[in-house]
């Protein structure tokens, strides 16, 4: 590869291998006061959320704002939100890897870390939301004296397997990717960090044999992760699509959710990269080109999402199913019109700005946009879940749900949980892949 012309995504001011190692190792320097301040802040929020959870477990789910028939609320909404976030990571590291798009190298580590932490966050919510979380382990098919098994027809069991697999695979992926970098850091580090990295690098030395197996393994992991990415959110979407609820029971859900997931995931990557790049002074490696590429992804998925919205309404009308029609009418003009319109504006209209190269290359604009997309995607799930449930078949049994402080606290806690992990990661492991960045930099040759 090194012999070919400099590929896209190549750092502008041709850094040498040595520069790469130096610059990226530099990000692992001892953290400053701001870092610890941030960490303290998120941990406080996390503790508040945890307190709220304990309160809910003690007193009962009644402390949440559930109003039948809305039996799923903020928790499941946030669950789907985080699962969605988790998607861009593996997309960038696996799918783009298979597509050999070189620009991924600078950003994929961040995305992948984000993926793992997002799944870790998402995984908490099904537990938080069930009525008797002390029995949640009954969803696992383990041999028990009751001779009972689980219902493999239930989408929730599918979820268990999908999320579990996704978490395992993306974690493997992250760790495998880290090994050579940790080795590189090891050889620069001193003191306790030296010990840490010596252990975590698993005695990696970059021999021809190691590279031989490593590259292959990485390729197949990517090959496996690719269908997985697409499957996970499809399965999550089937939690709804398998339901009989008007506004849920639609075949479009799987692609619709996957697109939305990648959309929100990429947005979150942008949200994280912009400050990261600034703080760690990585402008040399994460360039405006990278952001433009990301925003192209945003644009693509955003257009798919917008199309999906349109389709939903069209089908509701075209199907002639009065329940569907009523449900969608209620979305747009019912009690929850504000949620629906937030979602449509943030996800359906704002991405159109990305048609303009100016905006694609304007990092502050992208940052703001990404925040809106995150917001919009949360509301998309809120609308799909809460609004559909509040307006089902039985007019007599319709209701209106407003979340309680407990739900907000736990949701805030989930964000804190996510950022805590990310902060810890960013300071202790290379957030840009050393080896892969080097891979796309041509090595010096004696014959120029």
């Amino acid at each position: 590869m090194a012999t070919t012309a400099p590929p896209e995504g190549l750092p502008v001011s041709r850094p040498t291998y040595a520069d790469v190692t130096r610059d990226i190792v530099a990000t692992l320097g001892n953290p400053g006061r701001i870092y610890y301040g941030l960490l303290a802040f998120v941990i406080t929020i996390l503790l508040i959320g945890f307190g709220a959870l304990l309160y809910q477990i003690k007193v009962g789910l009644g402390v949440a704002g559930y109003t039948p028939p809305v039996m799923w609320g903020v928790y499941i909404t946030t669950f789907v939100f985080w699962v969605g976030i988790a998607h861009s990571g593996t997309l960038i590291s696996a799918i783009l890897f298979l597509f050999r798009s070189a620009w991924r190298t600078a950003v994929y580590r961040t995305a992948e870390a984000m993926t793992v932490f997002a799944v870790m966050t998402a995984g908490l919510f099904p537990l938080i939301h069930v009525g008797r979380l002390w029995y949640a382990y009954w969803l696992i098919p383990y041999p028990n004296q009751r001779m009972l098994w689980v219902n493999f027809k239930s989408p929730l069991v599918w979820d268990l397997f999908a999320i579990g697999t996704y978490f395992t695979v993306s974690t493997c992926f992250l760790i495998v990717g880290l090994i050579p970098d940790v080795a590189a850091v090891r050889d620069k580090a001193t003191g306790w960090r030296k010990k840490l990295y010596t252990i975590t690098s698993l005695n990696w030395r970059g021999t021809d044999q190691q590279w031989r197996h490593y590259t292959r393994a990485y390729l197949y992991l990517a090959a496996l992760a690719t269908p997985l990415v697409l499957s996970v959110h499809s399965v999550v979407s089937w939690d709804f699509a398998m339901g009989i609820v008007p506004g849920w029971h639609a075949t479009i859900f799987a692609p619709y959710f996957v697109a939305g997931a990648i959309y929100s995931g990429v947005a979150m990557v942008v949200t994280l990269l912009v400050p990261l790049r600034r703080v760690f002074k990585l402008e040399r490696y994460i360039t405006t080109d990278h952001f433009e590429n990301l925003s192209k992804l945003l644009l693509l998925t955003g257009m798919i999402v917008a199309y999906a919205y349109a389709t939903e309404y069209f089908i509701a009308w075209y199907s002639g199913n009065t329940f569907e029609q009523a449900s969608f009418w209620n979305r747009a003009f019912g009690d929850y019109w504000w949620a629906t319109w937030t979602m449509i504006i943030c996800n359906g209209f704002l991405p159109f700005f990305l048609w303009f190269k100016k905006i694609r290359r304007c990092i502050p604009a992208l940052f703001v946009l990404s925040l809106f997309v995150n917001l919009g995607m949360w509301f998309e799930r809120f609308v799909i879940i809460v609004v559909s449930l509040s307006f089902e078949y039985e007019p007599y049994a319709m209701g209106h749900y407003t979340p309680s402080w407990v739900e907000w606290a736990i949701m805030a806690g989930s964000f804190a949980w996510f950022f805590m992990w990310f902060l810890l990661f960013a300071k202790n492991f290379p957030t840009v892949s050393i080896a892969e960045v080097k891979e796309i930099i041509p090595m010096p040759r004696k014959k120029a």
Partner: protein
Amino acid sequence: MGKEMDRRRFLKVLGVTSGGAAAVGCSTGTPEKLVPYLVPPENQIPGVATYYASTCRECPAGCGVHVRVREGRAVKVEGNPGSPFNGGKLCARGQASLQGLYNPDRLRGPMARGADGGLAPISWDDAYARIVERLGSTAGDRVAFVTGNESGTFDRLVNAWLTALGSQGRLVFEPFGYEALRYANQQVFGVDALPSYRFAEARYVLSFGSDFLETWINPVQNTREFAEAHSVTEEGMGRYVHIEPRMSMSGINADEWIAPNTGTEAVLALAIANVVLADHGGNAPSDVFRVRQLLEQYDPESAAGVCGVPAETIRRLAAEFSENSSLAIAGGMGNQHDQAHAAAAAVGILNYVAGNVGRTVVFGSDPDPGAGSTYRGLADLTQRMRDGGVDVLFVHGANPAYNAPSGLGFGEALGQVDLTVSFARVLDETAAHADLILPDHDPLEQWNDFEPRAGTYLLQQPVMQPVFDTRQTGDVLLALAGQLGASVAGRFSAQTYKEYLQAAWRTRQNQLGGRGVAFDDFWAASQQAGGVYQPEPTRAQRLDRNVGGLTFSSWSGIAGSGDLTLMAYPSSVFYDGRGASRPWLQELPDPVSKITWGSWVEIHPETAAEHGIVDGDFVEVTSAHGTAVAPAFLYPGIRRDVIAMPLGQGHSELGRYAQDRGANVYNLLSSEPTEFGGLSHYQAVSIRATGEHEVLASPAGRSRQMGRGIAQSTTYEHVEAGDAHPFHVEHAAEVPEAIEQVLDEWQAAQDRERAIGNYAGDHPRWGLAIDLSRCTGCSACVTACYSENNIPVVGKLGVQRGREMSWLRIERYFEGGEGDEPLTVEILPMMCQQCGHAPCEPVCPVFAAYHTSDGLNGQIYNRCVGTRYCSNNCPYKVRYFNWWDHSDENSAAHSFPEPLHLQLNPDVTVRDKGVMEKCTFCVQRIRGKQNQAVLEDREIADGEIMTACQQGCPADAITFGDLNDPNSAVSRLSQSDLGYRVLDGLNTDPGVTYLMRVRHTVEE
């Protein structure tokens, strides 16, 4: 789970009361105590229910009950099939009598007012001493005794006792005294009595505001007979026209609702009578000449002007009335304005000229829910008290301080009485002013009898040991008599009230010609039957000689202070307010407004719009006599110039469930007795929005069906024409033959794949058929379900957040009612439909929701993890989640405070926090009968298993059975042309078939 706590505490209680009872069921609690009987009560086997026949005393109707007793505690009250009144059925209030017995606010022993003015416990002996001492120094005529309707031995005991004291001061006070009706009969027929109304024979019912399906005389009997006579048969269908400014629950069940100008029923009735006599006088008895002249003054045209009812309608009604075996009724408490007697008299004449007297209106058995009570009597007594004419006052089974207008000032007048003795079971408004409270036994703990009408002698027997240190008032009176010196004591041979009662029944046995039979046998037989039922005595009734001289005037109408008319109508749930202390009844949605745990003001949407009022806005209602504040309920079923409020709420006492809840509407009424000696329930009022607002505590999400055909109805015309034109939600396209075949084969293959393990072989499929033409929406089934299935009450906030747990709910939908189009109200009982292809089942990850081999949606509480996915996926929304720990006494949501936990059905698990629950067709009853059948080595007969809702339903609207048995009643009903299944288009294959409601409408 919660039951463990419940049982341990239960044993503690019985440990002190009945010396312990054998424990059944088991629990994970440690260490658990098993307490055996000291001496086993006869015919009680632990784990096997015993039934005791008794009589319901929740209202004066006198329905027979069977009380289900397990391990020495009453766990359910059911109708006595042998009773001529309720024939095995029971209304919500009757079902809830259990919560009178176990009410946590029951007085636990005698109380006396101390020097500090507070009530403190006192020993029975000291209490007796105080009374004896005071009576000793009082002239008899300064002693007064107020009771409710006690037509029976106790009634005679009280009189005898007073006579012994030399007192005439007996007063019966029943707030629903039917004074107008009795007064009118005095005028028209010359008898101060009530006839009995034969709804069974009446194919045409014309109700002038009588809520005969709710509180009027004997609602359960009325409902039974009406539902039967009104239903579709070969001869045709009954018809019912309701005439009232407001569409009450009874009105909802009418085929036609007419709202004449307020208070003009008399004129309308006379006009109809006029036409009947003039055009269809055939059936009229000979002496109608007495009224002919009177009636001629009321020609339809002029009447139309007064009533606002078109003359042709009057003529039509008259024609219909005379063509059918008809019955006109009036004198409901809801229509008791100050000319109610006129209306009642007019209706009496109408019945007479139509020849109904002696046919559907029969004099002779003289039922009297009021037991001769008049409001004027209370007013006079109050005056005497105020003038210091009463030294000692006894109050039993009446609460005048609550259900008389505050203007009367009964409470204050009590201050003028030296010694007020109350026998209240729960501290009510009157008892709160008393000096001594000697709590009576609950009716379910008593020996007593009751004579709701001539020829019917009902027995009450204690079904369990008294829960608290209470004494039956009869015993108290006899004990006092014993201490009051020879003059009094001499008159009573009996030591205990039971002896007194049996003595009375000895004489009765002789009267009834029961000589020859040993008394004990007679007694035992009566006990088992719940009483002695003689055929109703009848007597021919002729018009009073002076009837022609009667003058009729309509209600004086709006007087002064307001532009709207307030109707204070009786609550079908709380009756006159005595039911308000029962949590089941508080949480039972009102059949019309569907509001729970409070009062409301019914306002027509247009009137509300004029005042800028929306649902839930607090409205201040001001009359000349007081004000009341309650949230507004916009109801298209009421005249624009009328607002209505239910009686029964707004207690200042009566325990935790009733206290400070809603508004006491009595305080808006005039305390002046009317001409007929009653209380006028109509008032001129003005309204004002206070600016506050609340979410109505009502489970009704939307009041309109949005054309979804949940509750479907048709007209008799269509039924006759043979097309019930079932409502189609789905407009599914024709499926081609080939596809059909493929689908069938596929279905067959699927079925084969299912028929393994427990599912192999033949099984029943349990199903329900619900006839909406019979269902009146009375909600007895709902309370029955609460009682049978240990359903917790969630309180007002819970209902406001839609978290009520009622497994069975009565849905109420409005149709039309906008502008001039007529309003119809659809009623539909909705419980788990036990779908064959249940959407709730496959989504449960742990098989907590699954399909049983006999076609039920099993719900395994102890397996449930609480994902609530099943509820999301249930199109009928009949799954209920335990948001709190209702069974934990330390939880704020605790629903069974001691001793209410004694009501819990030991056959049903008390559900835990975080668990989904729902109707399973009373699976505990099914399994019970199946076990029994296996032991007796026989098949289960059709109709042997009854769900609790079916058993309670006064209208017999619900039928349960095996759908796989082609001959079962339920299968046959499910095949009916009127049958439909809710949301059939979803292919859920429900096990519940509804029979469309048929309305007998007519074209103008």
